[in-house]
């Protein structure tokens, strides 16, 4: 009787169904947890993503985002319906100071140029045999903007959500390693030494009008960007209006943290062994790196053009900050600028292209969704 019960427990437990593929996914989850905890690689998202992978690959747990009736199945609706990325964008807007961009609006062009990586990777992915929807989702990794990548992928190629989210957040954490060699290779020491003049003061009225104008203009141009751009600018209006401090605080702290937990866990829980352990995943990760690298190239090259056109007043290093990744990409510009000229402070100047990159990647996503969405 006792041995029969024991035998039954053993054979009906998850251990009996733990095959090598699931075990390998647990190792992947372990590596990502290590990177998040020990190496602090984008821990706010990588940690829940990794734990989501861990839970989804424990047999019989019913914790995959696709296991109907399971906890993550319902929480995943926020990803599937594009709710979480939009709410995160509201928090990002509440935390973002668009002042440097408003004071030097030409920064917007650097934010546009840095989206080149998205379309380069898109083209390569198409040539590798991915569908246009998959290629769009892979390319958008180059925007260096996690919520936008997840928003686009959930709409165009949800089966790639796991690898794309992991690639996007891992590469964002690796920006201080990916960008500097490209920046140094494309610029001369003389260009890197350029000290830029301080931007002008921006009035409160300009700060208030900016999110309203951008929302009206961009949403009319690209309606598919409405959830991202609209919420980004709403969050920024909370911040700049100065009259809804409680909402501003909630958007950038409590709400953002709650949504980040749901988003990370459920995106991680889409990565089950049968879909994740495929050649496709390796291709996505490789193409994501290509997208990041070429985004940096696009930004720096336009920075060089601006250097020439302004007769040496623009430091091309700020161009690389045009990939979103706020504020890490701007910090990289600052660090590289100081290496060339210890008296150089590029952070404020690089924040302009950096926040322009957030708008640029949302616009790029809107175009791809408009062209290839169902």
């Amino acid at each position, binding site marked *: 009787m006792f041995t029969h019960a024991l035998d039954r427990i053993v054979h009906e437990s998850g251990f009996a169904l733990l095959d090598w593929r699931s075990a390998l996914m647990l190792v992947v989850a372990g590596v990502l947890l290590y990177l998040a905890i020990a190496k602090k690689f984008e821990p706010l998202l990588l940690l829940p993503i990794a734990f989501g992978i861990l839970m989804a690959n424990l047999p019989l747990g019913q914790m995959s985002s696709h296991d109907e009736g399971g906890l993550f199945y319902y929480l995943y609706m926020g990803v599937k319906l594009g709710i979480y990325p939009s709410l995160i964008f509201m928090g990002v807007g509440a935390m973002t100071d668009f002042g440097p961009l408003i004071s030097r*609006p030409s920064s917007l062009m650097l934010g546009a140029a840095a989206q080149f990586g998205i379309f380069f990777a898109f083209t390569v992915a198409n040539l590798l045999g991915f569908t246009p929807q998959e290629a769009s989702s892979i390319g958008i990794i180059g925007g260096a903007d996690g919520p936008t990548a997840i928003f686009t992928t959930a709409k165009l190629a949800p089966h790639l959500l796991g690898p794309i989210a992991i690639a996007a957040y891992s590469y964002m954490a690796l920006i201080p390693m990916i960008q500097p060699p490209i920046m140094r290779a494309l610029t001369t020491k003389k260009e890197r030494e350029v000290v830029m003049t301080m931007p002008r003061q921006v009035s409160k009225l300009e700060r208030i009008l900016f999110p309203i104008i951008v929302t009206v203009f961009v949403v009319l141009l690209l309606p598919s960007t409405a959830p991202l751009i609209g919420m980004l600018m709403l969050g920024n209006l909370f911040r700049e209006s100065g009259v809804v401090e409680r909402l501003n605080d909630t958007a950038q702290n409590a709400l953002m943290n709650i949504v980040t937990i749901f988003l990370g866990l459920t995106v991680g829980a889409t990565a089950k062994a049968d879909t994740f352990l495929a050649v496709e995943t390796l291709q996505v990760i490789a193409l994501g790196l290509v997208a990041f690298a070429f985004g940096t190239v696009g930004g720096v090259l336009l920075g060089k053009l601006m250097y020439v056109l302004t007769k040496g007043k623009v430091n091309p290093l700020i161009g690389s900050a045009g990939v979103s990744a706020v504020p890490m990409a701007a910090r990289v510009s600052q660090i590289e600028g100081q290496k060339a000229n210890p008296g150089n402070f590029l952070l404020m100047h690089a924040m302009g292209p950096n926040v322009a990159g957030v708008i640029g990647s949302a616009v790029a996503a809107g175009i791809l969704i408009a062209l290839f969405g169902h």
Partner: protein
Amino acid sequence: MNISGSAWLTVLVTWVTRLTYEPPAKLDLSESLAVTAFSVLVVFLALASIWLVVAILGRIMQSFHKPRGGA
């Protein structure tokens, strides 16, 4: 490299008329390049337009804050 004229036209017409675009199951090089060139153009135009509006707004704001009176 032959960039098909029809690929460019399809993407352009789709965008302008906002018809339901039925992309092919796979894009070849010419179609990918058409989409890429067109999308990069739209990204630049969109952000350049914001630049223009913000620059005009900035000029107007600065004109209000100019010091009054002469020497």
